[in-house]
Each structure stands twice: as structure tokens, then as C-alpha cells.
């Protein structure tokens, strides 16, 4: 079977034969950059159409069905529309920050892509503190939202940004703690090692109940961190019209929109890596025949399958639940999620020390 690592190796070998080391590195970097940007473009298109179809089916509608076969090219048409729209800057806005904010949102999302293992031996940057890097970078995204809210010179935007600040700062905690549970079990911060440690079973199965609790906390926390319903208080359509991006239009709005979906993809990818074994295929004990079939499926398919399953879960939340109020949102974090994850991490530590996990 084909795999990403083989393709990468072929390119690498060909480049090394043709150019010297420096040029090889530079060209590889350019290729990686282009790949990331195109991945984002594709992701944006795929996730938007997916969200629209999922919501439509849950709402007993057909969804987009006019552009392209079964409406699959709808998001392409939307992008085109957004591209040609006028990007307006409101009067009295802080022009520099106003224009900078969407790019920061986008940059954060791109940076987060670096340590993710998309397939077997296929990773942009396997740094040894991958988990720490992810939590560190993802907390920058709040700055872009605050910047957008402040610079818009709009009270709705400001309220949305303030809400978002409170929300992301609090939910970082339980997201971090639930990630820590897996770090404790693995004993490493490196994402590739975390994946490798799940060769004989995913952590969600190996880690007993504490891992499941950590998984649920993680999903809730990342839903909040990416500002998705039921935690979309920063946007809160029926309260703040569109929250922090009320004043954005055209491509700048599209960048926020894209960054939201990119963030969803990334947190789901992290979730899949930590809890569902990343690109590791699904194995059952000694069923060798079954395991071989599972191995035959390419590792990238496993990775994207798991990630999209988690993305679907988050979309499912969005199209089912009402939105929380700001004080209830913080209550949920400080009164429920944080104590639970703290107790949970104690349990996990005990389990790791006593080697109770498989």
C-alpha cells in the first residue's frame, strides 16, 4: 500500500541527490509550507460542506444541493463569494489591530499543525515537547479574538471578546489536565512516542475509566476552546449578533471562519492522537487475521478517520444543544470539569505507578 512516509522519502531522496543539504532543507520547507496551506484550504472546504450537510440532515432538511454533484462544491462557491466581497473596516476602528487579528487566528492554527503525526513516520516536526507546544500555542488564539473584539470599536464585539477571554483561559485548565492524564500514562511529551505507546491498544481502552473520563473532559474542554456551540458565547448569534467578528466582512471574515474550522480539526487530531491511537490501526488481542486486515488499511486513513469521527461528534453537539450562559459556562468549568479532572489525574497517576493499565 501507498503511504505518506514513502512519498516523503522518495521526494527527500530525489532532492538530496539533486541538491546540496541546505537547498534540500529549504525546498523541503517550502514544500511543507505549501502542503500546510493547501491542507487548510481543502480542510476548510471539506469541513464547511460537512457541517452544512450534518446540520441539514439533523434538521430534516436536504442541505446544499445545487452547486456541483449533490451540492458538494457549495463551499467552493462560498469561498469565491467571500473572496470577491469588499472587506470593510468600520470607522473608529484600530485599523492595524483590526486587520492583524484574523491573520493571527490563522497563524496559530497553522503553527499547531507542526507536531501532528498524520500517518506512520509522517510528521512535520517531531519535537520532544509536542504536547506542551500544543497547549502553549493554542492559548495564543485568544489574543486574536480579544484583538478583533477590541479593535472593532463595537460593543457587541467587545462583549464577545471578553466572554471569549474568560472562557478560553478557564477551559485551558481542564484541557491541559486531561491531556496530562495521557502524558502520565505514556511518560513522554513527544507525540510520536505517545502514538507508539498505543501499539498494543488505544489509551481509551487501556486506561480504564479514568481515561474515558479524561477523554470526555477533553472533548468538552476543546469544544469550549474552539468556541463551538454549546459554548459559542463569543459569537452567541442570538445575543451578540456575531460577537467578536460582527464587523468583519469579506476575506477577513473568511479567515476567522477558516481558523475556526482549522482549530476544530487540530483539536480533534490531538484528541485522536492522545486517546484513539493516532494513526495506529484498531487491533483486537490475538485475532491475527483481523489485525492483519486492519494493518492493511493505510495509517493516514486511520488517522483521518478518527479525526473526522471526533469532528462529527463536535458537530453533533453543536446541532443538538442550546447555548450556556456565561456564568453557567464558568460554573461548569470550575465546579465540575476542574475538580473531576483533578481527581481523575490522581487516579491516573496511581494507576500508572501501580501499573494497573494494560
Amino acid at each position, binding site marked *: 500500500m501507498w503511504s505518506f512516509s514513502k512519498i516523503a522519502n522518495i521526494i527527500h531522496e530525489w532532492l538530496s541527490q539533486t541538491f546540496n543539504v541546505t537547498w534540500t532543507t529549504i525546498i523541503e520547507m517550502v514544500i511543507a509550507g505549501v502542503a500546510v496551506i493547501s491542507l487548510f484550504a481543502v480542510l476548510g472546504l471539506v469541513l464547511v460542506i460537512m457541517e452544512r450537510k*450534518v446540520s441539514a*440532515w*439533523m*434538521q*430534516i*432538511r*436536504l442541505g446544499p*444541493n445545487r452547486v456541483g454533484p449533490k451540492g458538494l462544491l457549495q463551499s467552493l462557491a462560498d469561498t469565491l463569494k467571500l473572496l470577491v466581497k469588499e472587506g470593510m473596516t468600520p470607522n473608529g476602528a484600530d485599523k492595524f489591530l483590526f486587520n492583524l487579528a484574523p491573520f493571527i487566528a490563522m497563524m496559530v492554527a497553522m503553527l499547531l499543525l507542526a507536531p501532528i503525526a498524520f500517518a506512520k513516520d509522517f510528521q512535520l516536526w517531531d519535537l520532544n515537547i509536542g504536547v506542551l507546544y500544543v497547549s502553549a500555542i493554542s492559548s495564543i488564539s485568544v489574543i486574536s479574538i480579544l484583538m478583533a473584539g477590541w479593535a472593532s470599536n463595537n460593543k457587541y464585539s467587545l462583549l464577545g471578546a471578553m466572554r471569549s477571554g474568560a472562557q478560553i483561559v478557564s477551559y485551558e485548565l481542564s484541557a491541559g489536565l486531561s491531556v496530562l492524564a495521557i502524558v502520565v500514562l505514556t511518560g513522554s511529551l513527544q507525540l510520536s512516542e505517545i502514538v507508539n505507546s498505543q501499539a498494543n491498544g488505544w489509551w481509551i481502552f487501556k486506561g480504564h475509566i479514568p481515561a474515558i473520563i479524561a477523554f470526555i473532559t477533553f472533548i468538552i474542554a476543546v469544544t469550549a476552546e474552539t468556541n463551538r456551540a454549546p459554548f459559542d458565547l463569543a459569537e452567541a448569534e442570538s445575543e451578540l449578533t456575531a460577537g467578536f467578528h460582527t464587523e468583519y466582512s469579506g476575506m477577513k471574515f473568511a479567515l476567522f471562519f477558516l481558523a475556526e474550522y482549522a482549530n476544530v480539526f487540530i483539536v480533534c487530531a490531538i484528541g485522536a492522537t492522545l486517546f484513539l491511537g493516532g494513526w495506529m490501526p484498531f487491533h483486537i488481542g490475538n485475532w491475527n487475521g483481523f489485525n492483519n486486515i486492519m494493518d492493511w488499511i493505510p495509517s493516514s486513513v486511520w488517522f483521518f478517520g478518527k479525526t473526522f469521527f471526533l469532528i462529527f461528534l463536535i458537530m*453533533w*453537539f453543536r*446541532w*443538538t*444543544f442550546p447555548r450556556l450562559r456565561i456564568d453557567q459556562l464558568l460554573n461548569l468549568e470550575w465546579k*465540575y470539569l476542574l475538580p*473531576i479532572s483533578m481527581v481523575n489525574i490522581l487516579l491516573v497517576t496511581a494507576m500508572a505507578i501501580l501499573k494497573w493499565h494494560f
Partner: protein
Amino acid sequence: MAFLKLIMFLKDYIKDVFGAIKSLATGMKRTGYYFTHHKEIITQQYPDNRETLHLPERFKGEVVMPHDENNEHRCTGCTACELACPNGTIKVVTKFDITPDGKKKKAIDKLVYHLELCTMCNLCIEACPSDAIKMAQTFEHSVFDRAQLTKVLNKPGSKIMDGVE
């Protein structure tokens, strides 16, 4: 006592958490059901289903005046509809015809109908003593020029049907 209280608190706490998760799961089950059951979809693909789209015969789309094959209508020009209309939608312009036996007879010249003023209240049709006008089941009324909404209901050259007084 304090310990017992803590136990009770913990019990309630855990009960809360599980109750919450259960209520959320019920909702997700419902949306999940609709996600997988596409037969429940109720969308009508409007411009595509024009052939199969049947509006009920009572639907009030616009006022029309039916003419038979001899280009004859039933309107006597009595202006009952004009009086019944709350918005001044209908204007009856009358003229005098000469009947075969030489008498002058009142008849309509034009029955002007302003679709842009009409609220489809059906009062004119109720008021008409000779059933000359009725509601049509059309509903795609948008035009590019407002003037096109002012219509003359009787066809050119039409005359009143025999026997209608």
C-alpha cells in the same frame, strides 16, 4: 456528621453529573436518529417541483375574470367589488353599449386591478353578484416593473355573456 454530609454531597454531585449526561444523550439520540433517517426530510425543492406542485383550489393568488371560448365574461359593471374592496384595488370603468334593440346598456369598459395593492382578502369575490371574478392559484407575482402589476381583467374585445344581469 461532616463525613456523612460529604458523602451526601458527593452522591448528589455524581447524580447531577450523570443526570446531565443522560439528558444530553437523549437529545443527541434524537438528532442522531434524524441524521441517519433521510426519509424524514421534508424539504421541497421549489422551483424544480413546479410540475407536481398543486395549490388548493381555494388558494387566493390574484383576482382574475374567467372568459369563455367566445371571449365573454359575466361582469355587469355593478361596482360591487369596487365598493367591497378595502384598499381601492379595483376600479371599474363603465361605458354604455347599444343593445340590438337600440337601448343604452351599462357595461364595463375596463376592470382595472392593482395587484400591488391587493391583500387577497376575498371580499370582492364574495361581493360579486354574478360570479364574474374569482381567485386564481398563481403566486409567482414578482415583476421588474411596478406598472406591470396594474392589470386589466377583462380581455380586449370581450363582452358580457348573454343572460347575465
